[in-house]
Each structure stands twice: as C-alpha cells, then as structure tokens.
C-alpha cells in the first residue's frame, strides 16, 4: 500500500493552491499602490495624518463633516473666508458689496485664479456651483442653506431651468439676489458647499466627481485608495500663497487609541483630527507628560452638548419638570469626568459665538430646588423615564451614567436606551417619539441664528427630521427669531438673539450641559498648526521643520 508521493497527490496540490492564492492576493494588493510610507523620514515636507474611517466624498457639494471639510479645503477655495478673529475676509473675491435693502450681494472676483485643470475661474462657475447645489439630483446636504436665493424653490421643484437669483453680468462679477435680507449669507458662502467646481469636470464624472475633484485650492488629489489612504499633492495651477508642504498623506482606519500609538511611534504628525482630539484614556497621561504636554494645542469649539427634553411629551411638557432636571444635574461633575475638556454650559450659545451673554447664570446644581419643582409639578416622588443615548460613544455613556445617578437623587428613575448614531438622529427628530435624549450641535457658521433659529424656532418643527428635537414652540421666541433673521443691523439682531436665548433658557427645553474643547497633540516638528473654532485644521498652512 505504500506509494511514493508525486506532485499529483492532494497534499502537494493543496500546498500549491494555498501558495498560489497567497501570491495572487498580495499581487492584487500590490497593484493597488504603495501607499504612504509607514514612518516619517527626516525632514520631508509630507504631512501624515490618520482618520478613523474613509471619508464619504471630496465633492464640496456633498462633503459635510469635520473630517472631510479640512481635506476639501486643501483642494477648493471660495469667495470668502475667516481670519483668526472669525471676521469674514475676501478670499478668491477681490471685494463685495451688499445692497441697501440687504437682498443683493455682488462679488468682484480676483483675476488670474485657475482650477487645477488649468482653466481660469469665471463668475459663471459660481453660478453653476450654487445652481448645482440646489439641483435635487446632486443630493447636496447643504441645499437648505441656499434656499433664500431668489428662484431657488421653483428651480428645485423643476418649474424653472435656472435659479433666477444667480447671475454673472461679466466674467468677474457674480451677483446673488436673496428673497429676504440675510446677514448670515456671507457665512454660508464661506462654507465649502459654495467653493466653485468646473462644469466640464463634473460632466466628465457625473456619478463620481467626489473621487475626481478639481478645484482652485493649493492641493490636488493624487491618489485615493478606498478604505486605505489618500494622498494630496501641490496644485501646479494654484496662484495663491505658496504652501511648504509637498504632500499630505492620510491613512484611513483605526480608532483613536491606535492613532495615539501611531503618533507616539512618529508615524503620524497629529494624533487625531476628529472633534474628539486626544483620546480620553490618554488625555491625563499626555497632560502630565513634560514633553507631550508641550505639544498640545487646544481650542474651545462652537458647540453645545445637551439633553433634549421633548416639550410635547409628558412629563417634559411641564416647564417645572424641565427646570427641575436642569437643577438636578451636576454639570461640573460631567466636565470633570471628561477630564475638563469642556466648559459648563449656562445656556445655548457657546462662548465663542457672537451674541454670547457673559453674565448668564443658567441653572445652578441644586437638588433640593429640583425636588421642590418636581413636587410642584405633581411628582413629589419622581417618575420613571428613559434616556436615549449612543452606545458606541464613550463620552455619552459617561454623561448618561452621571445623569442617571443625579436624577435618582430627586426620585427620577432613568433607564438608559442605547441606540446607534443613525437611529438616534432619525428617532430624535421624529415628533412625539423620544422624550429624553443626549445630543450635540456643532455650528455650521459663527452666527447665533445657526443655533437659536435652527434648533428652537417653533415654526421650523416638522413631523420627521426636525432639527428642533425638543419640539419647542414659544410664539414670543419665534417672533424674536423672525425679527432677528431679517434685520440688517448686526448690533440690533444680536440683541434680539440674546432676548430669545433668555426666554429659551427660562423655558428649559434642554438640559444645557457643556461646550466642548478640542485638544490636539502634534509632533514637535509640525509647525503652522493654529486651531480655529470654524476651521480647526488648515493643513495648507502647516509645514515640517
């Protein structure tokens, strides 16, 4: 029965099968490209970054998150931008004027600006860009910001083939006519949605311009290996201030802990470019480390973390209950628990926002007062409720546990309902669905309307996908917000917003928790990183030294 092994025997075949598969998949992977080098090599001008998951889009009409935006801004520039004091300044416009009634904005474009395909930018490109955002087929998440343009509605409904309020009288003049005067519209134009794209390049890639971006910024996308890495290189057609960086390499994947390891091994230049910044488990160690702590940069963000109290659902339809909850929760403890990476909120607006009221006192931590308010509302022994929160989020888990403990002290038994981020966003915005939930709001632009009008205007309540997740509707507040929205006097409108915020805080549709602070850890050789509350990361200004 003994026989000599030949190459036809199963053992050999199996070996060759496995070996062949192994070689084939490595060849397959190898053909995909080299990717960024694993370690920083001396003084080359390559900025190395890592992000937790792949970005959704590099099309400025589609990208709408804190990770995509700074990358989009390396390739696209727009009419206006912010200086370090958050004042609007001309960027790719030379100047602008606003008509007396505040409805017409006229921009003169800077000459000599070219797209990365070499073509000069004209005013028609801006007409095309904003029309494209409003085109339903583009599915731009930013279309809501541009509906105040004259003719936007009829265009979106398919009753007109152009947006009446957008025009280009000549190659360097771009005119926007608004339905209502709106002082915030310049802020909207500073958002990446409004950065120009060339029509001919979109036509070349109608389905995937997001992966073939062509803009007017200092960088171009050199390679995007989906799920693995992105590489940006200088735009040869760029005529603005020269950037010292020769490339930006972005690795995709891994969580904050992994990125911290990569940072400490010198593989990346910034530990995290998400809003979280330094991961919580490492924060105390980093801040106590004599070397690492010198590499930390921080910036309060224009954002507010809060607990939403659905004012249409009992028992939160009673203002006394809502106030009781505001008095019952120890915000300072929450801030301590997140390693002081936040500022206790006394109202809606964060300190960096115009209209912020410095002398606002908010709700003091006062459990006896909370109990008295509950008793007054008919709940002397408390009640049972459920707090919806996102399970994967460590910060929210900590907040939820503090809330649970604090409310227990005044007799409110709080069950925790963990959901995914996707479920939270849908259910919280659905009317009469979630009584009590954690949430946060990050600004779109630095104006109080982006908080107060969007989140508390009762006239904006919708059955589903409402941003007013407390379903708060106070006619007095609505009137103030309406008046402020149409005001062309900045001082007067800020005062109107302060009055509106006073009423909102008094009505307590939220438990105002804290305003987050971003802490960033950079390598000592990385220069030019200056955090900004609107654009925390401006990569094009950085260099390696």
């Amino acid at each position, binding site marked *: 029965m003994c026989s000599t092994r030949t190459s036809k025997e199963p053992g050999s075949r199996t070996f060759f099968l496995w070996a062949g598969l192994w070689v084939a998949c490595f060849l397959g992977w190898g053909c995909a490209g080299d990717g960024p080098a694993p370690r920083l090599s001396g003084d080359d001008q390559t900025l190395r970054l890592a992000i937790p998951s792949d970005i959704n889009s590099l099309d400025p009409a589609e990208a709408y998150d804190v990770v995509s935006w700074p990358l989009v801004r390396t390739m696209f520039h727009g009419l206006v931008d912010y200086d370090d004091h958050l004042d609007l300044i001309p960027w790719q416009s030379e100047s602008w004027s606003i008509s007396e009634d505040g409805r017409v904005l006229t921009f003169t474009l800077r000459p000599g600006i070219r797209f990365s395909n070499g073509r000069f930018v004209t005013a028609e490109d801006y007409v095309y860009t904003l029309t494209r955002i409003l085109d339903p087929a583009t599915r731009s998440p930013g279309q809501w910001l541009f509906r105040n343009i004259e003719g936007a509605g009829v265009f979106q409904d398919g009753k007109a083939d152009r947006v009446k309020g957008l025009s280009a009288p000549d190659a360097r003049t771009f005119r926007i006519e608004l339905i209502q005067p709106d002082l915030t519209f310049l802020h909207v134009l500073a958002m990446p949605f409004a950065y120009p794209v060339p029509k001919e390049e979109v036509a070349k890639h109608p389905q995937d311009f997001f992966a073939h971006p062509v803009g007017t910024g200092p960088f171009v996308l050199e390679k995007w290996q989906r799920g693995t890495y992105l590489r940006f290189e200088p735009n040869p057609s760029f005529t603005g201030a020269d950037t010292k960086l020769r490339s930006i390499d972005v690795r995709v994947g891994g969580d904050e802990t992994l990125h911290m390891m990569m940072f400490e091994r010198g593989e990346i230049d910034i530990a995290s470019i998400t809003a979280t910044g330094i991961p919580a488990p490492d924060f105390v160690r980093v801040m106590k480390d004599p070397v690492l702590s010198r590499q930390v940069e921080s910036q309060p963000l224009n954002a507010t973390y809060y607990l939403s109290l659905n004012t249409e659902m009992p028992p939160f339809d009673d203002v006394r209950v809502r106030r009781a909850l505001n008095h019952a929760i120890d915000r300072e403890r929450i801030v301590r628990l997140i390693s002081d990476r936040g500022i206790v909120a006394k109202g809606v607006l964060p300190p960096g926002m115009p209209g912020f009221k410095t002398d606002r006192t908010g709700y003091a931590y006062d459990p006896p007062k909370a109990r008295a308010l509950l008793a007054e509302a008919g709940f002397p022994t408390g009640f049972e409720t459920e707090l919806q929160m996102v399970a994967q989020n460590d910060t929210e888990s900590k907040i939820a546990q503090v809330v649970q403990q604090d409310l227990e002290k005044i007799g409110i038994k709080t069950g925790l309902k963990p959901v995914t981020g996707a479920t939270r966003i849908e259910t919280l915005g659905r009317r009469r669905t979630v009584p009590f939930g954690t949430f946060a709001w990050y600004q779109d632009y630095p104006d109080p309307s982006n908080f107060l009008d969007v989140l508390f205007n009762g006239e904006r309540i919708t059955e589903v*996908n409402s941003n007013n997740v407390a379903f708060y509707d106070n006619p007095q507040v609505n009137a103030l917000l309406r008046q402020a929205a149409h005001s062309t006097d900045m001082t007067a409108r800020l005062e109107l917003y302060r009055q509106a915020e006073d009423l909102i805080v008094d009505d307590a549709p939220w438990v105002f928790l804290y305003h987050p602070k971003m802490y960033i850890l950079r390598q000592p050789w990385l220069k030019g990183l200056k955090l900004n509350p609107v654009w925390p990361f401006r990569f094009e200004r950085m260099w390696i030294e």
Partner: protein
Amino acid sequence: MATRIFYRLLWGIVVLWGATTITFFVAHAVPSDPARVYAGANADAETVARIRKEMGLNDPLSTQYARYLGRLIRGDMGVSLVTGERVSEAIGTRLPTTLALAVTAVVLWMALSVPIGAFTALHRGRPLDRGVLVVATIAISLPVFWLARTLQYYLGYKSGIFPVAGMTSWKHILLPALTLAIVTAGYYARLVHTGMVETLNQDYIRVARAKGVSEPRVLFKHALRNGILPVVTVLGLDVATLLGGVVFTENVFALPGIGTLALQSVFTLDAPMIMGVVIFSAVMVVGANLLVDLLYGWIDPRIPHP
C-alpha cells in the same frame, strides 16, 4: 456527478435569495433614515425629504425590493447611499486585503495546529498532551479583540517588530494573521489530535508499523491524510467566514478589508453596501460548502461525490 453539482448550485441560489431577502427587510426594519444619515445632523427636514426622493426611498418597500432584486439578477449590486461608490467595486477593492489576511492566517494556524495535533496524538494521555490541551483551551477562549490589541501593543507599538496597523506593506498582514492563528490553532490542534488518535488505532497503521515503516512516515504519510479529514469540513467554513470579513481583527489593525467595510456600512445604515457584503459572505459560505464536498471525495476516494 454533474447533475448533483447542478442541484447543489440551484440550492445555493435559493440560499442566496433567502439571505438577500432577509437582509433587505431587516436593513429596512431598523428605525433610521439613510437619507438623514447621508445628509448629516444639521440638514433641515426639506433637504432630507428631497434626498430621500432622489434615493428612491419614498417608494413602497416591495417596489424597492423588486428593483433591488432585478438589478441583482443583472449583476448590479447598486451604489452606496453614503459614499456613492459602486458596491461591487467597494467589495472588490477590499477583497485582496481580506484574502491576504485569510490565507496567511490559515497557513499560520495550519502550520501550528497540524504538527501539534499529530504530536500530541502520539503522546496521548501523557503530561505533554495534557499541557498542550490546557494551552489550547486558553487560546480558544481568548477574546480576539483583546488578543489583537495586546499583540498590537507589545509586538507593534512597544517592540516595533511588526507595524502597528494599516495596510501599506506585506508586513502589515502578519500580526493580524497571527492573532487569528493563535485563537484558532488551539481548536484545530484538538481536531487533528482527535482524528489522528482514531486513525492511529486503525489496522492499516498497525500493518505499516509491522512492516517496519518508520514512525515519521507512518505518521505523516499514512495517518495524517485520514486524520485531518474532519479538519477539511471545518476549514472550508472557516475560510468562507474569514472571506466574509473579520470584523474585530480588521478594525483593530485598521485593515481595509470586507470586515471593516461591513462595520462602517452598518454604522451608517448603508443598506446597499450591507446587502452587498452579506450576499458576498453568503456566496463564500455556499461556495465553500460545495468545495468541501468536492474536496472530501478528492482526499478520500471512498466517499461518494456530491
């Protein structure tokens, strides 16, 4: 035999249809709105409503299902609702990484488990065998995410022997593969052990020994081929599972594979991508089952072909 294979394939199609249908309705039963996820937290209700319409999400579920199935039959798995990427391309781009991880892991764990299983079978009941059993049990019980992070910390971050994470060279695959190999090799070693113990008691082995065949030759030439038969079934299914994506390992090591794609799709409720990954995994499992049946007949001609 061809008829049998045909029927097996037909049955495979029925299984795939079942998996597709269940996944489709489960994905749509989750209380969430893909249009809202795509539009982001700040977009207003009208924007979300318009995006919903453009995505075709306002149609009745049955219409959406029929449309999806129709496209699928034509080989079109659709487009991601979140990234706009074609689902088939997304899977194709991630497959080499997952395949490299799966093959390397299998090679490693087989290289560990077969000699260990054969050796302990020879020394059955002795202290060495019991010691290996304890180690194998511990290895089987290790949570993969914990082991992955531990190996990553000590062998990657601390010592620098392996890259910490990512997929920029072949070295990046070794540590994740080792993670999978450690947690799996113990189980396979026990499978080989059991198979070998049974085989070593067979008459033909005694005959071979009586004829003076050397012990290594008895073991590796005569006994192993029959002793590893149980491994083939399990291995086929395990490889299929690995190709369907190794969620924890890929995520800890930031590998751009099918597992990472699956997880991201679930978090963003990207229904076409979720369904694409599920269908792909189902194809792998159905295919692996068929392959295992064929391999059985190939390895042991006494077993009838399917």
